[in-house]
């Protein structure tokens, strides 16, 4: 407990300063550098695969039983790759930044976690580890965090990640929220446990639109949103549109995809779209270039509640919104799978999860976090930190951070593409819209 109190009292300013104007998904990845580095690796990978036969399809994995790598003694180090600004941080007396929840873990277990925020996009990170996985080599990581979607499915389909041992996650069994347990993209949490999640909805600046935005079609109506003013998220928009057209992505096929593509083409021709984003959408939104934008819940909520942008609003259109989760997985070849399993379950302790959520403000996969944040808000108020207390309270009361069943019922996971034919069909339908 002293750790938490310590953090609340002395590190609020640091917290806010470090997060200022950044969000974990909007850190610009320096497009040039990233890709230049990757393409050669990918090429070599592709080449190696051509010659290399079965690559990483480990023989031990075929039966469906948990990988036996989890049964040994944990090593004393775990290498954890995650996204930027996705774990609580604090500063010790000497000014060194550390992660309180990991420090507590090390004190409890003696296992040291090398935590690095090296994942800035699923595509880029996958591109980096794919050659090793395909070649049957270790990636060097014990835990990686990948969003449900195509890269996730490629990892599971090829069994490039270990099947987890259900016996090693008592906290998960006790505390995981319903949407974190047994998700459609990973039945039975065979391969993954969610780290954090979020919604893709609409963010807008109340002062810059004509009237309230209520439905998807408003994003294609220049009379409401203006021209060249809407930001669209390329990777999320097909599912987002389908959900709003009343289609469940889980049961969708090419005909439904085409329906969504037709809507997107109509929107494009309406002249409202300013840009299709892979990265950096939030910068344009905050700068006012795209007063209306598809947006990730945590980003907009952070600006609205924590950074003083009171005109910002995050909402679901009438038809609903997209739910996604970033998931912890153990890549094949991991040197310390038992240690990784302990770390993963550690974050399903509500006390620990609360410390994370108070810092990252996304959708926690752990039940009981909301009440604990409210308790912390009261404690902060008693200690005389009124502003901090109010922000904690607003976070805890935000329906998009702690959705009720009615709100969750409006959301769905995205289409689950599981083979190359589907992937090609999907790309042929949707890529022409953004790449004209």
């Amino acid at each position, binding site marked *: 407990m002293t750790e938490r109190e310590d953090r609340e009292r002395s590190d609020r300013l640091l917290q806010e300063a470090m997060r200022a104007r950044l969000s974990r998904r909007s850190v610009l990845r320096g497009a040039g550098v990233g890709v230049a580095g990757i393409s050669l690796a990918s*090429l070599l990978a*592709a080449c190696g695969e051509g010659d290399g036969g079965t690559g990483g399809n480990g023989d031990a994995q075929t039966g469906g039983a948990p990988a036996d790598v989890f049964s040994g003694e944990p090593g004393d180090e775990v290498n954890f790759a995650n996204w930027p600004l996705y774990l609580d941080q604090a500063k010790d007396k000497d000014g060194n930044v550390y992660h309180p929840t990991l420090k507590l873990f090390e004190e409890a277990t003696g296992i040291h976690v090398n935590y690095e925020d090296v994942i800035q996009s699923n595509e880029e990170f996958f591109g980096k580890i794919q050659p090793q996985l395909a070649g049957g080599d270790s990636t060097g990581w014990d835990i990686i965090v990948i969003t449900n979607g195509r890269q996730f499915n*490629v990892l599971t389909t090829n069994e490039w990640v270990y099947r987890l041992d259900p016996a090693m996650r008592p906290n998960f069994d006790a505390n995981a929220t319903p949407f974190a347990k047994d998700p459609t993209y990973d039945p039975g949490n065979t391969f993954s446990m969610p780290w954090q999640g979020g919604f893709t909805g609409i963010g807008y600046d109340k002062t810059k639109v004509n009237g309230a935005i209520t439905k998807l079609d408003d994003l294609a109506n220049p009379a409401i949103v203006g021209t060249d003013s809407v930001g669209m998220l390329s990777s999320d928009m097909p599912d987002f549109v389908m959900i709003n057209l009343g289609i469940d992505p889980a049961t969708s096929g090419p005909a439904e995809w085409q329906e969504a593509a037709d809507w997107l083409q109509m929107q494009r021709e309406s002249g409202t779209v300013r840009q299709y984003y892979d990265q950096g959408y939030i910068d344009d939104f905050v700068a006012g270039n795209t007063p209306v934008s598809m947006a990730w819940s945590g980003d907009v909520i952070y600006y609205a509640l924590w950074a003083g942008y009171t005109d910002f609003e995050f909402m679901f259109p009438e038809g609903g919104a997209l739910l996604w989760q970033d998931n912890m997985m153990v890549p094949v070849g991991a040197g310390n799978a038992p240690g990784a399993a302990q770390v993963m379950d550690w974050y399903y302790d509500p006390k620990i999860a609360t410390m994370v959520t108070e810092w990252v403000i996304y959708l926690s996969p752990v039940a009981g976090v909301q009440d604990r944040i409210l308790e912390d808000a009261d404690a902060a108020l008693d200690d005389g930190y009124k502003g901090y207390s109010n922000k904690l309270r607003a976070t805890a009361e935000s329906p998009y951070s702690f959705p009720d069943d009615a709100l969750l019922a409006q959301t769905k996971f995205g289409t689950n593409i599981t083979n190359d034919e589907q992937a090609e069909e999907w790309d042929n339908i949707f890529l022409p819209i953004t*790449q004209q």
Partner: protein
Amino acid sequence: MATEALTGQEPATEPPSRGRSYAARRRLAPLWLMTPGGVYLLVFLIIPMGILVYTSLQSGGAFSGRFYFDWDFANYTDQIVQYESQLIRSVTYSVIVTIACLLLAYPMTYWIAFYAGRWKSSILLLILLPFFVSFVIRTVQWRFLLADDGILFGPLKDLGLMSDSFHVLSTPYAVVAGITYNFLPFTALPLYVALDRIDRSLVEAAKDLYSSRWEAFRHVVWPLSLPGVFAAFLLTFVPATGDYVNAAILGGPGTTMIGNIIQAKFLSELNYPEAAALSVILMVAMLILATAYARVLGTEDDTLTATI
């Protein structure tokens, strides 16, 4: 061995074969000299290029876990048909960029070469100075400069000089301007080299023969600077066509260049064969255009080599 070959010195223990061996080694000397560069090119250019072509003829996908080689030429034909408009757009942007760069850089380098005197090096350094900062970061800065309500347009809009909806970001203008800015040194340096090498006495001679300043430029300076223009065009046009950073950072819905497509294929679609095929197509197209250009307008001059 290498040192011996270079210096022509022989160990004294082999006198009988000295004559022949000496000649043979002399002939081999250039080969030895080429070795480091040759190995470098082999490892970092030829082999990757081979892998690129090999990959471009593969089939399969990410979900299958592997790609296999099967002479899949459809990768090529499909891509050309599907992305014709982006290829044309890339070349069009690049031509505009190259011409804009030449128009900007020629007067500038002319002035430096002819009138800057002892400040030449300092001013050249000034041209290069921005390029000590990362390419991507400079391009991102343009977003701040050109933001709809940013430091440039914000005040103008407040004064009512522009409509509120006016914007440059997300338009082709921003992309072309961004590439022009980023590739200006590739144009300026070869131009400078060519202009600086022109013998001033030729200009004086022209004036002695009663040419006006314009005529002297038109008939003496311009023709002598053409090798520089030729080199500048190639050094700008070829990389600018493949650029994707500017379109990604400054562009909008209708500015996708071929580089962006290749990036998406590599990273989002994980379709390495198609991405490789498109890369080869772009490379071959550039090679054809550059060769044709060299045949039509090329010179024997070595400005290109001198610059590099």
